[in-house]
């Protein structure tokens, strides 16, 4: 045992990245001159040395089996000197030194059912989260919606017909494990029913004071139910943040009748042209409708199409809406503007229209 303990190494951190850099990258590290997009999913980076590195990008469901990873390795061994990388949006990139390998690689990928694209003015992969596959908090499934939406938008991944980049993200609950709060289009799982309380076990498994303190709107009060200490929720004050559930498993928000998603638009992260922006509420609620979630797919597709048809070149979703104004956005999309769209949280007043700049 003491021998075992001695062998046990910790805190070694990840492997040093240099081990995994392609030779051409090592040689031209920090000395790239410019790049050009050659066709959908394919670009070349030219170094000061004149070296050319070709990138082929393919879609990836993110939730993958080791078998598929091994398949990708086989392709990398065949075409890209045993190197590949993943992108910050979970696409896979093959880094080729030989231009002649591009088309055969693409052919192999397509044969395996993997689309090539996502570069330039395209829709890239949807940043998303666990959903019903792994998380206890999920108000919807992540992978399922992503699959349906990407099926519908795949041609826009495989081409470069859009005015600019379009980034979609999905999070399965308000914790927003991803980029939902700053995406061109965001799909957000939401609960709509106040926590149902398991009075029988609450006081055994949760500390009542911390449950009470967890609620940002002070909707939770201590109470006694059937002689047991528990809590009660003032339902009018509940905004479904699920913070109480995070603190106490006896406060369940998940509910098949009332869970679903909301749709958000106009966020961005890059500093290009416009400063980063938060996403804003477009559709307050769409019920969960697996396996196809047709209403979600339809809404997202429509938003993409309207933007594609109306935005100026380079204009991200949020920049486009800022130019035409929200009244026109709601008119064009046919989405009904409702009470839910009006902010009533901490900084609500700053989101009111505080000028007579009106577009009729």
């Amino acid at each position: 045992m003491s021998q075992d303990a001695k062998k046990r190494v910790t805190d070694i951190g990840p492997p040093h990245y240099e081990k995994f850099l392609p030779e051409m990258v090592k040689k031209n590290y920090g000395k790239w001159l410019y790049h050009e997009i050659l066709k959908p999913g394919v670009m070349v980076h030219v170094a000061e040395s004149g070296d050319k590195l070709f990138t082929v990008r393919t879609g990836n469901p993110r939730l993958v089996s080791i078998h598929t990873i091994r398949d990708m390795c086989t392709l990398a061994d065949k075409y890209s000197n045993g190197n590949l990388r993943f992108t910050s949006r979970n696409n896979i990139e093959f880094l080729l030194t030989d231009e002649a390998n591009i088309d055969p690689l693409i052919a192999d990928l397509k044969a395996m059912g993997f689309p090539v694209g996502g570069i330039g003015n395209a829709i890239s992969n949807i940043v998303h989260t666990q959903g019903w596959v792994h998380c206890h908090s999920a108000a919807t499934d992540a992978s399922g919606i992503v699959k349906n939406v990407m099926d519908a938008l795949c041609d826009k991944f495989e081409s470069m017909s859009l005015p600019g980049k379009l980034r979609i993200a999905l999070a399965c609950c308000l914790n927003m494990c991803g980029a939902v709060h700053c995406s061109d289009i965001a799909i957000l799982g939401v609960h709509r029913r106040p926590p149902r309380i398991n009075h029988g076990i609450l006081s055994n498994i949760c500390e009542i004071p911390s449950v009470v303190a967890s609620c940002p709107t002070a909707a939770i009060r201590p109470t006694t139910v059937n002689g047991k200490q528990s809590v009660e929720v003032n339902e009018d004050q509940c905004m479904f943040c699920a913070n109480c559930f995070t603190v106490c498993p006896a406060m369940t928000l998940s509910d098949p009748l009332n869970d679903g998603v909301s749709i958000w638009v106009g966020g961005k992260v890059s500093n290009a042209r416009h400063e980063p922006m938060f996403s804003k509420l477009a559709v307050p609620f769409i019920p969960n409708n697996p396996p196809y979630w047709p209403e979600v797919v339809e809404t997202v597709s429509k938003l993409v199409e309207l933007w594609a048809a109306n935005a100026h070149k380079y204009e991200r979703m949020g920049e486009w809406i800022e130019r035409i104004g929200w009244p026109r956005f709601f008119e064009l999309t046919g989405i009904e503007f409702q009470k839910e769209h009006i902010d009533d949280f901490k900084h609500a007043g700053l989101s009111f229209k505080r000028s007579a700049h009106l577009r009729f």
Partner: protein
Amino acid sequence: MSNTSGKTPKLDKLDKGPWPSFVKEIKRAAEKSPMSKDLLGQLELSYEEKIGHWKHGGIVGVFGYGGGVIGRYSDVPDKFPNVAHFHTMRVNMPSAWFYSTEALRKLCDIWEKHGSGLLNMHGSTGDIIFLGTVTDKLEPIFAELTEAGFDLGGSGSDVRTPSCCVGPARCEWACYDTLNLCYDLTMHYQDELHRPAFPYKFKFKCAGCPNDCVASVARADMSIIGTWKDGIQIDNGAVKEYADKGMNIQKDVCGNCPAKCMEWDGSTMAIDNSLCRRCMHCINVMPKALRPGKERGACIMIGSKAPIVEGALLSSVLVPFMKMEPPYEELKDLVEKMHDIWCEEGKNRERIGEFIQRVGLGNFLEAIEVEPSPYMVEHPRDNPYVFYEEYFEEGDEDEGEEEDE
């Protein structure tokens, strides 16, 4: 060290200089008014000591009115007995501050007889401020004022004296009759103006166009700002004239358009009116060539105020476009509903803008029966904390109908 000698060496220094001097004015009044003389003395004391010498508040007024007079007492009445009382009266000015010399002289006469002979033309809310009198004189002044056709303005938790820009009287851009609306509202709310019964003050300001020459968006609980719905009227001949006279139309006009919706090809100006924000810039720069459209009215905005104590607010859009024609019933109905809910549920000293933020604009709209509109917001919410109001319960009819809980 304190000064009761009648000497005012510090203030004397402000007696000269290119800008007309308030010291000269006080001195001029002081020639006849002992009150103004003591005001000068007390002010000199303040200049010496770097502190004011007025006691806190004091409630005085004319019979039957709750507002219109600000009580003021010196904290050094022994030194300056003539300003022991130094109340102001707020006299409701006429719309857009137009006067005949006859009326002005009448006011001066009243004030010479009963007050310090000093006034503010005008107070920040717009009233004529009669600066300095004693309690006993309030009723006589009021009697002579009404005799002369004037009445008091607001103070305290009431409708405050409404004000308006010069509008159609002398401005080509007025999109509605600001003077008429201002007068109409003032008359309609006489009771509310004179007898404070609100949680706090309520101000109306009427601006004829988005230039907002009465600063309504910053200083009125209800800001009524003229605007138009159709396209800007363009006289291309006149545009050309401006160009010929040397105006750089591309840079100065189009280049400053916040909507980037203007095209100038050297001879014709085209405006995409669906993008135009009605900001007025192009019209301001070329008044001969461009004019507001023909379908005119006003944008009704609510809630601005100074910072005490939750931070300053700007007004925000409530109704993006309303026709503005006498008797202004749509507007008055709206105001009534707003006042009702605010009086019922507002806290003491809570302005309506603060009230709306506390209860939520959505809830407020429901109470006043106005439909939510994207015109009301700069953008929809960016946080996910939606108070969904309904949910299904097991066994609901087909689980297809939502229950109000």
